[in-house]
């Protein structure tokens, strides 16, 4: 009888230990995950604002008229280094201002928007692809309208585009990313805008270059 009672007592103590261990683990992992999110949010806010400041400071390019060709090439490479914004995207109607980085990796998209690899760039022309997180900087795009003005300020020029179409496509549909003869812009983000996990669709905003936009 005592033997059974001792065994029950051992089981209860074992279960209590397991619960305590689960409790501690849940606190630690939960706190880690929340901290990760908080750090990423802080990095997003600080990184974005610093990138905008860096870009504003770099707007006055150095006089390269006496530079050697190799030095100019090195300077151009340095401008494209990771972490350096290549442009600033503004949609005044949405009060959206976001730095645009040269790549669309996770860190860049956390701090702003990124140029889509394999598509054009604002200064070189073609179809310029810019991607952003739908739960971050590109969430205001849900309110964009045809005819809205998109402005992309590079170190050389301010490019203006007029929104011509808004589409929702499957995540594997690349048709709207094709190159165009005349300069154009394509903003890409996930859809639906409010969705937990990997959204199955993409929200695509296409814009046509405005030739009368010289600064």
């Amino acid at each position: 009888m005592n033997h059974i009672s001792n065994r029950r007592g051992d089981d209860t103590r074992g279960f209590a230990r397991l619960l305590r261990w689960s409790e501690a683990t849940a606190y630690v992992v939960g706190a880690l995950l929340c901290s990760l999110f908080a750090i990423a949010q802080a990095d997003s806010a600080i990184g974005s604002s610093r990138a905008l400041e860096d870009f504003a400071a770099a707007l006055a390019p150095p006089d390269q008229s006496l530079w050697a060709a190799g030095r100019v090439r090195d300077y151009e490479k340095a401008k494209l280094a990771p972490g350096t914004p290549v442009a600033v995207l503004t949609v005044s109607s949405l009060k959206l201002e976001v730095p645009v980085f040269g790549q669309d990796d996770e860190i860049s998209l956390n701090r702003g928007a990124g140029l889509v690899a394999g598509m054009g760039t604002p200064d070189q022309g073609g179809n310029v692809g810019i991607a952003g997180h739908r739960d971050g900087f590109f969430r205001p795009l849900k309110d964009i309208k045809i005819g809205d003005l998109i402005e992309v300020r590079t170190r050389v020029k301010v490019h203006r585009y007029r929104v011509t179409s808004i589409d929702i496509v499957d995540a594997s549909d690349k048709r709207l990313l094709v190159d165009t003869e005349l300069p154009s812009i394509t903003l890409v983000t996930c859809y639906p805008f409010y969705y937990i996990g990997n959204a199955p669709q993409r929200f695509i905003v296409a814009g046509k270059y405005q030739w009368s936009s010289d600064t």
Partner: protein
Amino acid sequence: MKRSTYLSFIGATVLLGGAATPALAATCADAQFGPAVLERFPNIRLVCSEVIEKEGQQYAVVKGDLVRTGNNAVYMKFKLADGTKSDTRKIATRPEFRVAIDGKPTSVRNLAVGQELTAYVKVSDPVIALAPAEEAPLELTPIEPAAPMVAENTAEMPHTASSLPMFAGLGALLLAFAGMLTFLRVRRES
């Protein structure tokens, strides 16, 4: 004496006039464009803004907007007299070649879409050159048929979904679960 002076004046006028004729550049309307130029650039008269002389040759000055750069070339649309734009034209050039932008020498690699550029088309031969920033020999390149540049699509749909909100949600659930366990444990122990 008076007659000889008069004749001398006429002679000098004729001579000077004859010598000045080539210097008085033709206009876009009456420039004698070579057949090959007209074949490769049929609307050259419509995009020509003036005809100038350079290095002893006549050149039609054409202005246009930069549409694209890359592959050691610039792609331009020239402005027609009626305000419309021509087909896209390619001008091969070195990336280090410098053109004048707002009076400053700017290398081709630093040009941006939408900038206005000037080019020279040789009146007699089907060659074209970007106007250099400094007084330098023209870098003439054959006029290629109008051809828009459209690159093959190599872009993949970007991953614009972040896992961070999911992490935050999971973290909050775990903290709530841990809090519930603490509550139950404290209640049981007391």
